[in-house]
C-alpha cells in the first residue's frame, strides 16, 4: 500500500471492505471513514444456513447499499492469513503421519482447490488491484471486532474459538489513546490442537449434535445434568503451570483430520456416543448420562475461561474485558466470567464468531494499518438489509389473507400486544437485519412468556427442535433487575443476549416459557436508544399484563437462516405455526381453512 494516500492518515474518504469466508458463516462488512456502514452474513442472502462460500452476495449488497464501486475501495481485508493456515494444515498432517493419511488428500484438495488462493479470488471477483488486498490474522480480527466495536478505551482482550491459523485462544489488551490512536497487543496464545472450541465441538459431536451449530444444544442440555464426569473432563483438559491448558490428544482425533473428532479412549471414558437421530430425553437413564457429560464439559469450560480471565484481570488491572471468538457465544460461561473474574464489564459483540471477523478485519486495518484515529462504533447489531414490506401486502392479498396496514406506531404496537395477550405467536420484522446469530428484536418470533405450554408449542410447531432447548426473554433494560438476577455489568452483557442469568425465584412460574430447567434465562436487555420500537412494544405489553417481558426467538425454521426479506418472513409464517406476521406496518393473519381450499382448487 506504499503510495496510497490514505495510509498516511490524510483526510480523504477511506473505504474498507472486510470479508470472512471459507470455513463457516461467511460475511462482508463495509467501513467508511472508520465507521461501519453495513455488514451482513452471506447466509441471510443466499438462504443457505451457515453458508461458508465466498460472500459475493454479501459484498455486492454492501457495495450497493453504500453506493461504492469495487474500484473505489481503498482496501479489501480478508479475516485471516491463508498461507499461515495452510502451514498449520500441512504441519498437522506431518505430525500425524501416517495416521493422517485418510484426511490428507481431502485437506489438500480443499486448500489447493481454492482456499489458498483467496487473493486471486478477491481480485478476480471484485476487480480490485492486488496491492489493495490485505490479510489480518484470525484472532486479531476477533480481537478487533471485540475491542474496537466496544464502548471501552482500555480493555483486556480474550479471544477463543476452534482455530484460526494456529492460535485457538489469545490474551491481550487494547487501548485508545487521547488522540484516537488505537493499539491491540496480544501477549499470549494457545495453539492448535489445544483448543477450547474444539474441545466443546468434540463433545457436541459426541452428543450427536451438528458441529458449529449444535453447541447451543450442549449448553441447554447441560442444565439437565450433574457434572459427574467433570474429573474425567479435567483429566483430558490438563491445566498447565502458566494458567493455560493442554488437551490430552489420546482422547481426540480431530487434529488428525479423522472423520470422527473423538477417539476410542474417549468413548471408553464417557460411554457410547449418541447417534444424531436418537431421541434425547434427559429423564431417561441414557439421556441423563448425556446431560451429565454436557454439564461436565460446560463446567470445565467455565473453569478454564474464568481462570484465564482472572489472570488477565490481575495482569492488566483493567475493569473491562472484551471477549471474542465463537466460544464467546457461550452465555453461561460469559455470566460466570463477569461474576468471578474481577472485571466489571464484559463486552461481547453481537457476532463474536467468524462472521463478525469481517467487521473486525476492516476495523483492524483502519485503526492499525492505516493508523486512522478511532471513532466510536455505533453500539447496535442492526447492520444488515432494511425491511421493505411493500411486496408483502400484495402477496398476502393475492393469497386471500387478512391484512391490515397500521401506519401509526402506537396503534401498531397496540395491535401486536392484542395478539400476544391473546396467546398468538407473532412474527416480528422491523428495520435492518441483525448481524450475528441472534435475533434481537428486528427479525424475531415473539410470544407471551408465561406458560410452559407456549414453549412446547413453539418447539413443536415452529422451531421443530428438542424440547430441552430453552427460549430467551427480552425485557426493557430499566426493568431487567426486577425479573432477573443480574450482576453488576449483567445488563450490558444482555444487550446482545450474551449472558445467562437466574430468573428471580418469585417470577419463574410466571415466566415459565423462558425459564430454563435450572431457573436461568438468556436475557436480552433492550434499550430504547438501540431498538425503540421493540422497547416500546415491551413496555406496552408490560402496561397491559404487568410483566414487560416477551419470549424472543429467532425468526427461522429448523435448518434455515434467520429471515431477511419480508417475503422470507411470509414464507416462514405460512409454513409454521406462527399466527400473525407484523412486518413494518403491515399485519397479516392466517385463515387456514381458506388457504387449504384455495390450494386444492388451483391444483
Amino acid at each position, binding site marked *: 500500500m506504499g503510495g496510497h494516500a490514505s495510509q498516511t492518515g490524510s483526510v480523504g474518504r477511506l473505504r474498507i471492505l472486510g470479508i470472512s469466508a471459507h470455513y463457516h458463516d461467511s460475511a462482508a462488512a463495509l467501513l467508511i471513514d472508520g465507521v461501519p456502514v453495513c455488514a451482513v452474513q452471506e447466509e441471510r442472502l443466499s438462504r443457505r444456513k451457515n453458508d461458508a462460500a465466498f460472500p459475493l452476495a454479501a459484498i455486492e449488497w454492501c457495495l450497493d447499499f453504500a453506493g461504492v464501486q469495487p474500484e473505489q475501495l481503498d482496501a479489501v481485508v480478508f479475516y485471516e492469513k491463508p498461507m499461515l493456515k495452510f502451514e498449520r494444515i500441512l504441519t498437522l498432517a506431518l505430525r500425524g*503421519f501416517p495416521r493422517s493419511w485418510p484426511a490428507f488428500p481431502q485437506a489438500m484438495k480443499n486448500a489447493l482447490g481454492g482456499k489458498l488462493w483467496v487473493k486471486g479470488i478477491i481480485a478476480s471477483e471484485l476487480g480490485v488491484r492486488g496491492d489493495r488486498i490485505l490479510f489480518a490474522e484470525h484472532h486479531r480480527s476477533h480481537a478487533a471486532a471485540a475491542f474496537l466495536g466496544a464502548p471501552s478505551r482500555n480493555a483486556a482482550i480474550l479471544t477463543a474459538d476452534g482455530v484460526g491459523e494456529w492460535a485457538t485462544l489469545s490474551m491481550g489488551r487494547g487501548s485508545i489513546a487521547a488522540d484516537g490512536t488505537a493499539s491491540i497487543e496480544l501477549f499470549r*496464545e494457545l495453539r492448535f490442537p489445544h483448543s477450547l472450541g474444539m474441545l466443546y465441538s468434540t463433545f457436541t459431536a459426541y452428543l450427536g449434535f451438528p458441529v458449529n451449530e449444535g453447541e447451543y444444544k450442549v449448553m441447554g442440555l447441560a442444565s439437565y445434568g450433574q457434572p459427574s464426569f467433570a474429573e474425567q473432563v479435567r483429566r483430558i483438559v490438563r491445566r498447565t503451570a502458566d494458567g493455560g491448558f493442554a488437551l490430552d490428544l489420546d482422547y481426540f482425533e480431530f487434529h488428525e483430520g479423522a472423520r470422527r473428532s473423538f477417539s476410542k479412549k474417549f468413548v471408553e471414558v464417557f460411554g457410547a456416543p449418541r447417534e444424531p437421530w436418537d431421541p434425547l430425553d434427559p429423564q431417561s437413564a441414557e439421556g441423563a448420562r448425556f446431560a451429565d457429560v454436557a454439564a461436565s464439559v460446560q463446567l470445565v469450560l467455565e473453569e478454564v475461561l474464568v481462570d484465564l480471565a482472572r489472570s488477565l484481570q490481575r495482569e492488566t488491572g483493567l475493569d473491562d474485558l472484551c471477549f471474542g471468538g465463537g466460544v464467546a457465544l457461550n452465555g453461561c460461561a460469559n455470566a460466570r466470567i463477569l461474576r468471578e473474574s474481577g472485571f466489571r464489564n464484559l463486552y461481547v459483540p453481537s457476532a463474536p464468531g467468524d462472521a463478525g471477523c469481517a467487521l473486525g478485519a476492516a476495523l483492524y486495518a483502519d485503526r492499525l494499518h492505516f493508523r486512522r484515529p478511532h471513532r466510536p462504533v455505533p453500539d447496535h447489531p442492526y447492520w444488515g438489509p432494511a425491511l421493505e414490506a411493500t411486496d408483502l401486502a400484495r402477496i398476502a392479498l393475492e393469497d386471500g389473507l387478512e391484512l391490515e396496514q397500521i401506519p401509526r406506531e402506537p396503534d401498531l404496537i397496540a395491535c401486536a400486544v392484542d395478539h400476544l395477550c391473546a396467546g398468538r405467536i407473532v412474527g416480528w420484522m422491523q428495520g435492518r437485519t441483525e448481524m450475528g446469530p441472534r435475533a434481537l428484536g428486528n427479525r424475531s418470533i415473539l410470544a407471551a412468556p408465561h406458560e410452559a405450554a407456549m414453549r412446547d408449542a413453539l418447539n413443536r410447531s415452529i422451531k421443530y427442535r428438542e424440547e430441552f432447548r430453552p427460549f430467551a426473554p427480552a425485557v426493557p433494560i430499566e426493568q431487567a433487575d426486577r425479573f432477573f438476577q443480574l450482576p453488576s455489568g449483567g445488563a450490558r452483557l444482555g444487550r446482545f443476549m450474551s449472558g445467562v442469568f437466574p430468573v428471580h425465584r418469585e417470577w419463574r412460574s410466571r415466566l415459565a416459557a423462558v425459564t430454563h430447567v435450572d431457573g436461568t434465562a438468556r436475557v436480552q436487555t433492550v434499550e430504547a436508544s438501540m431498538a425503540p420500537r421493540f422497547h416500546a412494544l415491551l413496555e406496552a405489553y408490560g402496561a397491559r399484563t404487568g410483566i414487560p417481558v416477551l419470549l424472543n426467538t429467532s425468526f427461522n425454521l429448523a435448518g434455515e437462516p434467520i429471515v431477511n426479506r419480508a417475503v422470507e418472513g411470509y*414464507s416462514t409464517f405460512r409454513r409454521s405455526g406462527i399466527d400473525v406476521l407484523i412486518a413494518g406496518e403491515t399485519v397479516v393473519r392466517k385463515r387456514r381453512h381458506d388457504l387449504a381450499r384455495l*390450494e386444492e382448487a388451483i391444483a
Partner: protein
Amino acid sequence: MLASPAVRAAPSTLDLLLLPLHRLVWADPHRRARKLLRFAETEADGGRDLARAAELTFDPALRRLYLRHAQDEQRHADLFRRRGRELLSQPGSASKFEANWLAPGERGLDDLRVEKQSDETLLAFLHLSEKAAAGRFVIYRRVLQADPDTRGVFARVLEDEAFHMTYTGKQLARLSPRKHGLRLWQARAGRLWKTYLRLASAVASVFGTVMLGLQYFLLLPAFALVAKRAARREPPGLAPSRPPTPLQSQY
C-alpha cells in the same frame, strides 16, 4: 392409493429389473431405518428449496403450490424420521452397506440452485424429480411386504407425490403451453448432464486422492520426522503471541 388420475407413479424398467436387489437392500430393519433417516434429510432439504422457490416466484398460484409442496416435504421428513427412529429402537445392528446409489430417495432437489431457475425450468425439473422419486417409492413399497408400517409411510408419501406430479405438470402446461414438452426434455438432459458431472467429479476425486495419497507416502515421511521432533520440543500451555506481520503478507 394414488389419488390423481392425471399422473401415475410407475417404477422405471431398470428399477423393476433390480427388484431382487432392492428387496435385499431393504430387508435389514436397521439399514432400512438409516435409509429412511437419510430420506428425511433429503425431503427436508427439498422442502427448503421449495420454500425458496415460493419466495422467488412472482406467480401467485405457483407460490401457493410451492408453499404447500414445501409443507408436504416437511411432513414427509417427519414421517420418515419417525419411522426410522422406531426401526432403530428395535434390537439388532445393520451392516455399513447402505447402497445409497440404489435407493437415493428424492435426489436432485438437494443440489438445485433455485435462484438460477425460471418458473418453467423449475417446474419441469420438479415434475421429473417427483416422478422418479414416486416410481422408486412404488418399488420400495412393493419390497416391504413384511413391514406394513414402513409400507404405510411410503403409501402416504405417494399420495402427495401424485399431487406434486400433477400440479407440476399442469402448471408447466399453463406457463408454457407450446413448449412444455421441450422443457421436460431439457430438464431430462439437465439431469443427465448433472449425473455425468457427478460421475466425472467422483472419478476426478478418486484420481486426485490416489495421486495425493502417493505423494503423502513418498514425499512426506522425512519431513514428518522433523515435524514430530519439533512438536515434541514445543512446551505445553500458553506461548507468546506471534508478532503481527504486515497486512499485505499472507503469512
